[in-house]
């Protein structure tokens, strides 16, 4: 469980996080989305106790990060896969982690196996690792202490498609076991597949939060009838906003019951009546963060 409550972080005149509140629940994967510079990493760093908050609180498992005894046994973090000593071997990085976390050294071998780093690769220095290998090492490091909470910043970066699939399976399996997973990613398709809950952040503010299904479910009702023009007329008369649907028919900004009743009253026979199309995450993301996004060159 991660709870972020009215968190604000200012750097001089710049407000990186502005009254941010959200939570990541156990047994669920929470996707953390936002354009570059929206404050995702800053929020995760505050959660991990690396960045002091200007106001507000962030707690993990009910306590501030600094109050967790032996944090590695409670929280697994992967904030920056490149933040490792270039001259250490992957195995050594994990061994140091095992010493500090107080877990058996055999756990190092198990983690290497879990993330798919071979014995030979584990003896190479991190300097010679690809980004994908660093991410795998970072995840191995995060999982070392069998934590209840995982916080991962862009873990899919640099992974190949098989690696991304593997990462998804690990995170889903981890949440299925009761763990809390908070991950940020730019790969919207990936987040859409893996996340149960979403938190969307733009310009340091939370612009949307809820379950993935809720957020992506369409609004309104799609209706087709023998006479769409008459139906549209009747709906407008009933005070319902109507627009033509791209696939034919109408999209009414109300529920199916209302559309049905209006159609009945107007004497227009319906051919199709269903809930509006689900939005893609990309659409929702661009829509929500439109104000916060950087200026893009108009295509």
């Amino acid at each position, binding site marked *: 469980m991660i709870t972020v409550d009215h968190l604000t972080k200012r750097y001089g005149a710049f407000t990186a996080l502005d009254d941010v509140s959200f939570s990541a629940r156990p047994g669920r994967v929470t996707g953390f989305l936002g354009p570059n510079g929206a404050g995702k990493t800053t929020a995760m760093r505050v959660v991990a106790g690396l960045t002091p908050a200007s106001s507000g609180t962030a707690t993990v498992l009910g306590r501030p990060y600094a109050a967790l005894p032996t944090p590695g046994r409670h929280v697994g973090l992967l*904030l920056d896969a490149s*933040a490792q000593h270039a001259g*250490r071997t992957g195995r050594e990085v994990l061994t140091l982690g095992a010493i500090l976390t107080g877990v058996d050294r055999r756990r190092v071998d198990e*983690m290497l196996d879990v993330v798919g780093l071979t014995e030979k690769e584990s003896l190479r220095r991190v300097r010679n690792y690809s980004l994908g290998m660093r991410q795998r090492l970072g995840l191995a490091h995060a999982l070392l202490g069998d934590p209840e909470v995982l916080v991962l910043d862009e873990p899919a970066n640099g992974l190949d498609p098989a690696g991304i699939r593997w990462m998804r*399976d690990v995170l889903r399996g981890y949440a299925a076991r009761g763990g809390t997973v908070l991950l940020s990613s730019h790969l919207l398709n990936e987040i859409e*597949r893996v996340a149960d809950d979403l938190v969307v952040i733009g310009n340091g503010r939370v612009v949307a939060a809820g379950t993935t299904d809720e957020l992506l479910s369409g609004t309104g009702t799609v209706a087709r009838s023998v006479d769409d023009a008459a139906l549209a007329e009747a709906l407008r008369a009933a005070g319902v906003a109507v627009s033509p649907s*791209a*696939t034919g028919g109408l999209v009414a900004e109300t529920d199916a019951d209302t559309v049905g009743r209006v159609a009945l009253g107007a004497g227009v026979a319906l051919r199709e009546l269903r809930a509006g199309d689900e939005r893609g995450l990309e659409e929702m993301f661009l829509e929500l963060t439109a104000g916060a996004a950087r200026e893009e060159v108009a295509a």
Partner: protein
Amino acid sequence: MSTTTATTTTTRRAPADSTPHVARLPEPLAGPRPARGIPFGRLVRAELRKMIDTRAGRWLLVAIGVVIAGALTVLFVQQGGDHPYGAYLQATAMPMALLLPVVGILAVTSEWSQRTALVTFTLEARRARVAWAKVVAALAVGVVAVVLSFALAAAVHAAAIGLRGATGDWGVEGTVLLGAGGYVLLGLLQGLAFGMLLRNTPAAVVLYYVLPTGWSILGSLWSAAASAGEWLDLNRTMQPLFGGSLTGEQWAQLGTSVGVWVLLPLLVGMVWVTRAEVK
């Protein structure tokens, strides 16, 4: 537009749900999660390991060993090896005092230059404990190095007596041993302190090596600096340690300079490290 979203709808999460998890998950660890923090000894162990688990750290220690061995060899060969033990002792202490502080500097600065502080401070959020563990680990390395080198000096002196017929002269007082050891360890502490204050390897190394030269240049140009140097130039205030006995004023001078160049940067560095944002 809605055709594409409709496609997304049908495929959403299908791969994760329809195929069994192929990825292996780590075994849960048996036993309760610790209710207490990381014991200090474990932090020290990790810090000791960090000093020798990279090439830079290992070679630095090897280099110190090589320089000491070289110095002892020169004495052994020169004039039939006929030098008192004190001379052998000095030959080992000087290179150590010069090079060991870099071990202290690197122990701190590498966390920032290699950005491992990010990992270190998330595994132990009580940052001051990490900093103290570094101090203790560096001092432990220093003590071992001092004892080993003094023993090595004794072995070479004994060899000179036995093999080359040198006159045995073990006339070194215990206070001299302590003084020489203290000299080396204070240098090491200074390295740690500079590392904590500057958190940047080149800056800390340069400041450490330039400071004594700076004092002598300043002192030769400006007499006020020369008299201030008697109280503030660590190189000068630590010198009497080698003699093994200090006058009251020398103690005061040593204390002042250690306060200014070791304790102050160490404390400022500690305060900074506990409050700063770790990038």
